[in-house]
């Protein structure tokens, strides 16, 4: 495989395209509503109506507007149309509409703010390419970045370019990617590994699933470029078992890339070798933590270990290991293609580029969006998301899953970047954004997250194992209206203790939902408290002797 071969495949594929392309969304959301039957019906109908020569019915990945699914997109005469809530029996009228016929199916508006305010880098090909055909990806310039890196750049130059882009880890913590790559590249060792973290455990987040299902090659290409930059030859892609469609599409993608010599031995006929194996998770939230994930890749119980040593120095089987999130890898090919400086021009001073968010919960427009960093939260929730349904008010937005916090509606003008969200007591997280309306009880939400952390605690360190249970019991007591101010004070003390003494990110961030709801919605907690039968003797409160002197 040389660049000419790659271009020839792209050219051949482009020239074989038909005039009209009907794109059927076949990612997990739409598949649950018979998207596979819809595609079959559309194909049969195109044949029946004599449009077989002009119409290509294509399987595509997520188009983003999941709440309105199943979706069917149409590209005709340079215009893009969108059909929403499609049913299998709608196929005849959709095909008839291509010839100017009437169609009763709900028409979507591609110019809606939900789409218009987006900026696509990671999801550039989502909803456009067929995730099960590598030719589709090559036809839009896929794997050219890998070729460029391998033939025109030194590994150090690749690291330099990524550093220049200002890209930060998209898994949540926001560690500068270039710095991490540089550390792994410099670590001594003959054997190095690349690990892609696709263990998207945060409830309410599905960005990684969507990227893996819609465009698996963009992740593989990013991993291969990373492997070249740091000097690794083996990669592991860790995916949750809950995402069977993503796993099967990745298996197909790896097989196709190997057949074309884009993965495996001698990539692009250079001395660079790179193999990727899929590792399937088995349902443990803590495996999203990097040291726990590596233990799981090694076939062990997924429990974290103290850092340092960091994986960049001693990771899988004691070798230097580069571990990045799916979305981080998906940014790489664009950075190599268009340059780090171009990427650094997007976003804010400290948070560059775009971020994919899963916009869900009590909001009109559910789905996946990719926006430039620094966009105010209000634009995402109110303009793109359309606010809360049924005439209700948005009360708060939860970002960062069980490690994040609830941002109240008063702070909707906050720009979305790593620092601003941290300042509010939440985190960027992997990108889940769950909107809650005024009917939501914030104490219940805090309890919900604490129950999650309690069940998902791996049990290795005591603050997390025992602390989450105690915090959950206290929250339960509060919601049952049996707690007093003493219990609330104890809860706050425990939050502080668990946060500062836990071993890994799970425990350190487990109190965040409680702390942030206490900060902004303390009244809801206090309304549930009972008068203390023993007087106001509690942690931090005034002692009886002090009261007497006053």
């Amino acid at each position, binding site marked *: 495989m040389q660049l000419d071969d790659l271009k020839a495949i792209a050219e051949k594929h482009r020239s074989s395209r038909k005039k009209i392309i009907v794109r059927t969304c076949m990612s997990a*959301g739409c598949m649950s509503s018979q998207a596979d039957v819809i595609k079959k019906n559309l194909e049969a109908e195109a044949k029946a109506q004599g449009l077989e020569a002009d119409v290509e019915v294509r399987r595509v990945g997520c188009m983003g507007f*999941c709440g309105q*699914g199943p979706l069917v997109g149409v590209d005709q005469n340079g215009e893009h149309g969108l059909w929403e809530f499609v049913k299998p029996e709608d196929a005849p009228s959709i095909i008839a509409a291509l010839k100017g016929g009437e169609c009763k199916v709900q028409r979507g508006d591609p110019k809606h703010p939900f789409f218009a305010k987006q900026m696509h880098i990671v999801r550039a090909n989502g909803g456009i390419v067929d995730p099960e055909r590598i030719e589709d990806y090559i036809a839009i310039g896929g794997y050219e970045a890998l070729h460029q890196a391998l033939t025109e750049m030194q590994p150090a130059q690749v690291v330099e370019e990524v550093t220049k882009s200002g890209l930060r880890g998209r898994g949540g913590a926001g560690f500068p990617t270039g710095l991490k790559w540089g550390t792994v590249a410099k670590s001594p060792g003959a054997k190095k590994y690349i690990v892609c973290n696709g263990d998207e455990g945060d409830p309410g987040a*599905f960005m990684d699933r*969507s990227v893996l299902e819609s465009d698996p090659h963009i992740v593989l290409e990013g991993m291969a470029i990373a492997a070249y930059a740091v000097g690794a030859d083996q990669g592991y892609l860790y995916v949750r078992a809950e995402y069977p469609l993503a796993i099967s599409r990745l298996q197909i993608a790896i097989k196709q890339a190997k057949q074309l010599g884009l993965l495996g031995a001698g990539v692009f006929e250079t001395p660079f070798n790179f193999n990727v194996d899929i590792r399937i998770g088995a349902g443990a939230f803590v495996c999203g933590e990097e040291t726990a994930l590596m233990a799981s890749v090694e076939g062990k119980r997924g429990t974290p270990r103290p850092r340092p040593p960091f994986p960049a120095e001693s990771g899988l089987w004691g070798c230097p290991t580069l571990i990045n999130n799916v979305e981080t890898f998906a940014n790489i090919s664009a950075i190599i293609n268009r340059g780090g400086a171009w990427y650094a021009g997007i976003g804010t001073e400290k948070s560059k580029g775009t971020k994919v968010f*899963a916009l*869900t919960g009590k909001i009109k427009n*559910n789905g996946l969006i990719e926006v430039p960093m620094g966009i105010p939260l209000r634009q995402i929730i109110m303009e793109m998301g359309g606010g809360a349904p049924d005439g209700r008010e948005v009360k708060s937005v939860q970002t960062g899953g069980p490690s994040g916090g609830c941002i109240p509606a008063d702070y909707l003008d906050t720009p979305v970047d790593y620092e601003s969200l941290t300042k509010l007591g939440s985190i960027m997280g992997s990108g889940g954004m769950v909107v*809650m309306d005024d009917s939501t009880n914030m104490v219940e939400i805090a309890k919900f997250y604490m129950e*999650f952390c309690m069940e998902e605690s791996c049990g290795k360190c005591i603050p997390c194992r025992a602390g989450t249970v105690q915090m959950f019991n206290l929250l339960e007591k509060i919601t049952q209206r049996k707690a007093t101010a003493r219990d609330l004070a104890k809860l706050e003390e425990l939050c502080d203790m668990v946060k500062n003494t836990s071993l890994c990110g799970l425990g350190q961030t487990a109190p965040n939902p409680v702390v942030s709801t206490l900060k902004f919605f303390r009244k809801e907690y206090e309304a549930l408290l009972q008068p203390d039968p023993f007087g106001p003797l509690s942690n931090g409160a005034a002692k009886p002797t002090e009261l007497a002197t006053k």
Partner: protein
Amino acid sequence: MSTALPKQKNESLGRVMQHASGDKRFKILEAHMKKYQFRHDALIEILHKAQELFGYLEDDLLLFVAYKLKLPPSRVYGVATFYHFFQLKPQGEHTCVVCLGTACYVKGADKIISSIQEKYKVKSGETTADNKLSLLTARCIGACGIAPAVTYDGHVAAKQTPETTLERIKTWI
């Protein structure tokens, strides 16, 4: 004590191998292990395959895996119990997995689960007495755009309510 242990080990091994000899599924599982060259780091993949073949991971099956991979049974058992995906008890004829991710939760997944619990007298994670229905919960299946989502026998259904869920389960029982 020193002699009792090896004897016990030999006995359980003999039982497992006898159990395995007449069952084709063990052969398939062994072929799968061979594909991974009996490597220890493939343990989770092998347990996935075992669960796919047998439906759940019984003790003898775990012993078989441990013996074939030359791993201590404690390690295999430890991994099997650590991950939620592995089932150590047989499942009912049908499984209903209610997603309890945040998006599903704020949209009423808790009401769905309590309606099933009430109607069929089954707790989450358990199977009904007649072995027809297993009620499970998931910690987010990534289908948040279509919340609340419920998985019926492996098929995800969108935007469920207590009524639609009970209706669907009624067709099974």
